[in-house]
């Protein structure tokens, strides 16, 4: 029963994707939307059954492997199509299918009237399936399959509006950046097969102690490369802001709630490998800390409502990397969950705003929406408070847990991470409330007055209900892990991955006091700046650097793209054209010429042929006789 639930959870979205694809234009757009939503909720039901079944199981037995069949076999090495159900994967299943179901439902309203709605919902179902495959996989190769498939679904959905050149370019960029991570991940797997001869989690984790330090470090680096690319951490982060060209529900589902957090899942899932390579694990934490600062600063100057939230996503995933890097796995997954709630909520309310204003995303044209869209305003405020880590709201519990764990980790690394995380808390308050004030407070701008469509309320019901549900989750979702009082969530995750660091209750509440103060300072600064009508970043030079996202895109352009392009141009000019191309021309011309000469022997006169034949026979006879 338990494991059946897990299989239903995995296969229902796949069935939905196949059904929509095969039905084609025989079903209406609305039917496609219903199929997709329904199958995702069926998956959620399956996940719930699996979760409850696991809950009822004894503590020691909460690790169920179910194998469908042997997928490939080569000598002693075999990979099976198997799923692993434990406390970690069942939590991820609930998050992915639950938040996924809400967002697909929301899409029904958001995408209504689009020409290619059916294609959209088929892709969405494919994505949900791929993501579930990723988290349920029982071995690393199946994880890689899911890893690749979510990348594909992300590519397809970013470029969904293929008539927009920017969307197509963004899709390509995301795909290429992710391919780098996929490659390092695949290399790590090859190394593991080479050294241990197995890819199942349990087998690899048993063998990891027997490997040499170099091997473990290389494997961990490969896994980290995959995680960094998928989770848009520095230095492979540039694709995520551009990915906002896709439809807003896609940004909410793939580029906030689920796919981009796959890297965190991998870090936690493969924690035995990372613990055997402590340097690489520290590197993950450092990359996370750098990303959370850089992304937080860049978010201060962006004008596109979705891009601000995208940078905030990078920043929050940075927190999760810090947590996974210092060994606070429970908090990494906890923040992953609350982040899925409040960030999906923020994206979806942003989507409601964009939908309401006829597709406008520039916050300079927005303003004063509070009076026009009171419910949306409230939902956004909930998301913003959760993001900024204000008490009671979900983000408070998870983020402060991570910061406190950094303090408990101690040492130079721990204290630096602690400082970075606290600065990050201030930045979060700043950019979140800058966005909030600019969009919702003040007087309605002329653009808003002109475009606000008052006749149909704030949006269709299929958009508002999921937003409402997520608002509730973003508010109370953090109450499952209250330090020192009630921590069932952390105990649940700890059963699968034992944390290596744990903050004391004192550290927890002391940290919270500091972090909340900083968040409130951010809020107050943002309000003062808004009231005074100025920006948070005032230096024009700093502004320019931040607006260009620290020139990382330009640097990659100069470092990788242009040398490669110059090299290929040079090769074309100096090798392709003179050698390959011309030699082909020469071969053709030479053949023609020889053919022309030989053709003269072809006189068309029968008697010449007969004479030539007879003469040749005579010559042959003479030769044979002479040789013998």
């Amino acid at each position, binding site marked *: 029963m338990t494991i059946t639930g897990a299989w239903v959870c995995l296969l229902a979205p796949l069935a939905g994707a196949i059904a929509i694809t095969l039905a084609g234009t025989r079903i209406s757009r609305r039917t496609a939307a219903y199929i997709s939503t329904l199958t995702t909720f069926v998956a959620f039901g399956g996940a719930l059954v699996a979760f409850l079944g696991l809950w009822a199981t004894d503590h020691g037995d909460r690790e169920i492997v179910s194998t469908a069949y042997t997928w490939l076999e080569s000598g002693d090495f075999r990979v099976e199509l198997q799923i692993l159900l434990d406390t970690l994967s069942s939590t991820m299943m609930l998050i992915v299918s639950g938040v996924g179901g809400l967002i697909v439902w929301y899409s029904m309203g958001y995408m209504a009237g689009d020409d290619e709605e059916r294609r959209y919902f088929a892709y969405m179902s494919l994505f949900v399936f791929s993501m579930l495959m990723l988290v349920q996989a029982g071995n690393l190769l199946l994880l890689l399959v899911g890893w690749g498939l979510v990348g594909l679904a992300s590519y397809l959905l970013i470029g969904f509006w293929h008539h927009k050149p920017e969307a197509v370019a963004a899709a390509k960029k995301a795909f290429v950046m992710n391919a780098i991570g996929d490659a390092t991940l695949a290399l790590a797997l090859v190394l593991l097969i080479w050294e241990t001869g197995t890819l199942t989690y349990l087998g690899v984790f048993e063998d990891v102690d027997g490997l040499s330090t170099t091997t473990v470090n290389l494997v961990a680096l490969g896994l980290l490369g995959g995680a960094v690319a998928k989770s848009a951490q520095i230095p492979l982060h540039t694709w995520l802001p551009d990915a906002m060209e896709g439809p807003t529900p896609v940004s909410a589902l793939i580029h906030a709630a689920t796919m981009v957090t796959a890297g965190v899942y991998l870090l936690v899932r493969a924690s035995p490998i990372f613990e055997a390579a402590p340097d690489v694990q520290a590197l993950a934490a450092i990359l996370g800390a750098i990303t959370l600062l850089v992304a937080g600063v860049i978010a201060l100057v962006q004008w596109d409502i979705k891009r601000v939230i995208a940078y905030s996503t990078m920043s929050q995933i940075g927190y999760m990397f810090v947590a996974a890097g210092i060994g606070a796995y429970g908090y990494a997954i906890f923040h992953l969950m609350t982040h899925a709630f409040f960030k999906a909520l923020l994206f979806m309310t942003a989507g409601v705003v964009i939908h309401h204003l006829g597709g406008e995303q520039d916050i300079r044209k927005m303003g004063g929406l509070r009076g026009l869209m009171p419910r949306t305003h409230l939902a956004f405020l909930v998301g913003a408070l959760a993001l900024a880590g204000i008490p009671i709201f979900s983000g408070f519990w998870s983020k402060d847990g991570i910061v406190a764990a950094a303090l408990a980790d101690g040492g130079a690394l721990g204290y630096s991470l602690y400082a970075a995380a606290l600065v990050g808390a201030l930045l979060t308050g700043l950019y979140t409330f800058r966005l909030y004030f600019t969009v919702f407070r003040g007087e309605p701008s002329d653009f808003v007055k002109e475009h606000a469509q008052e006749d149909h309320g704030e949006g269709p019901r299929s958009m508002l209900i999921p937003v409402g549900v997520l608002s509730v989750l973003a508010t109370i979702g953090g109450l499952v892990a209250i330090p020192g009082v009630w921590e069932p969530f952390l105990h649940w995750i700890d059963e699968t991955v034992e944390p290596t660091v744990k903050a004391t209750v004192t550290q927890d509440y002391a940290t919270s006091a500091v972090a909340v103060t900083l968040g409130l300072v951010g809020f107050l600064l943002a309000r003062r700046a808004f009231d005074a009508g100025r920006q948070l970043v005032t230096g024009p030079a700093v502004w320019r650097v931040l607006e260009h996202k620290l020139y990382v895109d330009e640097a990659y352009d100069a470092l990788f793209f242009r040398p490669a392009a110059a090299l290929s141009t040079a090769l074309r000019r100096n090798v392709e054209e003179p050698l390959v191309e011309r030699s082909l021309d020469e071969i053709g011309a030479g053949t023609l010429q020889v053919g022309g000469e030989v053709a003269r022997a*072809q006189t*068309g*006169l*029968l008697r010449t042929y*007969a004479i030539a034949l007879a003469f040749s026979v005579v010559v042959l006879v003479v030769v044979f006789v002479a040789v013998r």
Partner: protein
Amino acid sequence: MDGPDVGWYLVVAAILFGIGALGVMLRRSPLIVLLSLEIMLNAANLTLIAFARQHGDISGQIFALAVMAVAAAEVAIGLGLIVAMARRGMLLDVDQASALRG
């Protein structure tokens, strides 16, 4: 064994073959060319049968029969071609039929 020695047969066959080959190479009328070809084939047949008799082996004779069948087929096609040429009013001259010149 009765009759002349096999060498004599070979001499006759060589002479016949030479006549036929010269006919093919020198004459311009397609009919004569065809006839000369037949002579060459029969020269070959003669050698086959001569050797068959010398070795007391019947396969040479059977092979000669096969050559006759081929020759008959060839004549049928060749004569058909010549008739077709004549019907179209073409000169019956193999040097004139040189459309396949390279």
